């Protein structure tokens, strides 16, 4: 499971450079930018689900919060960089508070799923009714259904007239994707990361070892929220408008599809899943023969039935039999342990 750190950094950077030069030859950078942003969002869910064992049905909430945090603070500050960091910190703090509430209440499984879903729905509904003049944060009108357009986008810190836009926004987003990926890999290798995996594997045992599982999960959730927020803030820069649809059920569903298709339990899988599905969606948008939602749905159903581990682990298995930790097919756990084991069986 653990490749040496330096080797991994070098591999990631080389692969990253190759992709950064290669991809724009085939696909326009505007699309690539949004694929990188989706990949970051997928990565955030892949991290908390695959490694923290927290299945969040409302990851879009933190994506949307990041985008709104960016837009609102960019209008108020008039400069892009403070908002850029706020868009990471605010969702992370909100995730910590909300996650803390859930995990300290010892909510699990389907109950966790329903509450994260409800959380997104509340934000979605709330943001949709903020069209009135009374909904203002500082100088920023929340705008309701129409969202917030017209905020300052990222520019060079030393030259505010030079916008990070077009190709450079792609390179910026792609670099951040690599940095976050490496950062999360590093985190997983750290003692905290191992405890986190321990918690995913067996919460009770982690507790009996003396780890405060609630705290660990809250921290993991907050990190996931921060990464999703980052992705949301990049999205705001890309789209130059934020709307309540960022919080929609569909957005949350898509993230889960990316992770499932790419492979939960890996970090690279969700990135791959997001890129593939995002591009597929884009391609589907250019034809009108078959409905796009239908294809996405069919992909998800087939992925769950045929490739429950996702594409990436299957590819890795095909290429090298050794080196990747394969899960032995889990036997039916004894009755008493079924609930606890359930999550693992599902990955």
């Amino acid at each position, binding site marked *: 499971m653990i490749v040496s750190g330096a080797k991994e950094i070098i591999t990631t950077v080389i692969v990253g450079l190759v992709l950064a030069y290669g991809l724009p030859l085939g696909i326009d950078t505007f699309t690539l930018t949004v694929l990188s942003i989706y990949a970051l969002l997928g990565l955030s869910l892949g991290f908390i689900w695959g490694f923290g064992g927290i299945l969040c049905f409302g990851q879009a909430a933190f994506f949307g919060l990041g985008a709104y945090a960016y837009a609102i603070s960019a209008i108020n500050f008039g400069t892009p960089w403070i908002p850029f960091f706020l868009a990471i910190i605010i969702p992370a703090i909100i995730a910590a508070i909300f996650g803390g509430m859930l995990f300290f209440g010892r909510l699990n499984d389907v109950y966790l799923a329903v509450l994260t879903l409800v959380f997104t729905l509340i934000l979605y509904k709330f943001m949709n009714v903020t069209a009135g003049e009374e909904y203002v944060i500082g100088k920023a009108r929340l705008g309701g259904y129409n969202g917030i357009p017209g905020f300052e986008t990222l520019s060079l810190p030393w030259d505010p007239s030079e916008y990070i836009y077009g190709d450079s926004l792609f390179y910026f987003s792609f670099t951040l994707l690599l940095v976050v990926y490496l950062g999360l890999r590093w985190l997983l290798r750290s003692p905290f990361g191992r405890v986190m995996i321990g918690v995913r594997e067996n919460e009770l045992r982690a507790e009996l070892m003396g780890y405060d599982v609630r705290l660990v999960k809250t921290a993991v959730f907050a990190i996931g929220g921060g990464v999703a927020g980052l992705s949301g803030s990049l999205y705001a820069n890309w789209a130059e408008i934020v709307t309540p649809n960022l919080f929609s059920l569909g957005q949350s569903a898509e993230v889960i599809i990316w992770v499932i298709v790419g492979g939960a339990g890996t970090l690279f899988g969700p990135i791959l899943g997001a890129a593939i599905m995002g591009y597929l969606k884009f391609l589907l*948008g*250019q034809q*009108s023969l078959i409905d796009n939602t239908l294809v996405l749905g069919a992909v998800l159903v087939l992925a769950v039935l045929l490739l429950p581990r996702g594409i990436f682990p299957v590819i890795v298995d095909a290429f090298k039999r050794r080196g990747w930790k394969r899960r032995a097919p889990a036997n039916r756990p004894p009755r008493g342990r079924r609930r606890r084991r359930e999550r693992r069986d599902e990955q």
Partner: protein
Amino acid sequence: MKIDRRKFVAGTTAAGAMAFMPNVVQAAATIKVGSILDTSGIFDLYGKPMDKAVTLAIEEINAAGGIAGRRLEKVAYDTQSNMALYTQFAQKLTRQDKVDVVHGGILSASREAIRPTLRKSKTLYFYNVQYEGGVCDRNIFATGITPAQQAEVLVPYAIEKWGKKIYILAADYNYGQITAKWLEHYAGQNGGSVVQSDFFPLDVADFGSTIAKIQEAAPDMIMSALVGGAHLSFYRQWAAAGMNKKIPMASTTLGAGNEQVVLTKEEGDGILLAYSFSKELDRPENKAFLAKWQERFGSTDDIHELAVATYQGMHLWAAGAIKAGSVERDKVVEALESGVSIVGPTGKITVDPKTHHVITDVHIVEVGDQKMNVVKSFDQRQPVDTQTVCDLSANPNDTTQYEIKI
């Protein structure tokens, strides 16, 4: 004429290159009209007929000899009712396809998503949709009807007919909020009063408690600016409670997507509306338009206000370009600002040079037997709402969407 050496070299090189690529020559000769609409997803009810309108208008213009001798070519993208795709496809239209004009956008959010892109790339933009008004930007022409144009004629008519106490129901977003303000404004001017305004997000489909509240308030009429499929339930539940027999209703939105056909006769009859278009308009231009549409697409059932606005927006742009003798943005804008008008299915429409909105006829119609029957027509109404905030001849660099304070 002095020939700049560099230009000359560039010119000959380009000509040389073109000789090997005959397609490029042809493509350069056509005028590219970008169209960006939701022709799938939840807004396709609006987008599909608008897309047809673009096609029909292009065919007509080409049949009449094109613009400055050049034919038009449609470059269309389906944004699938997804706001993110708007920016994506707008980039594609301006950077890859390098279109000469963009018509499209349905929701205000979609317009605001692409407006900066089109402005930055100096691509002329036509937004052909009934909307809340207030956009003040020299790069955009908004050819749809705005709330004041409707409220100005509808409110006094309804007050005279039904009484003074008005209960407003509106969709909870910019359009609904602003429309409600204009309704209230004109109610005040005509001696009426608004007893209550309720706003509903677009996905609210249950109006039971609202209907009870309305009865408690006992108004003389309902003014509705409800929008979209979920809100259609209101009219149904209103009729189910038997209220349509007791309290009459007027609306600035019902029918824009042909909703009068979805409602039954019992549910829809008697509702008053104000639009620039109705299929029942008795004008030769309208009859000709309906006949052409029938011939081209087989049925006129799907035509609605927005499709007609798109059709007229295309022709208005073409008239400007023909007058300018070019499709170059600045020339077309100047030509249109000089006061171009066309006569379309709705009657005469003229560009208001100060606001880039249109002066149009407005008709009060009454829903009857699933049709929009014209009861009274008002000629050449100014876009008074946008005019209160916007003067592009004085401030040509303005790009704001104003929220109009009344």
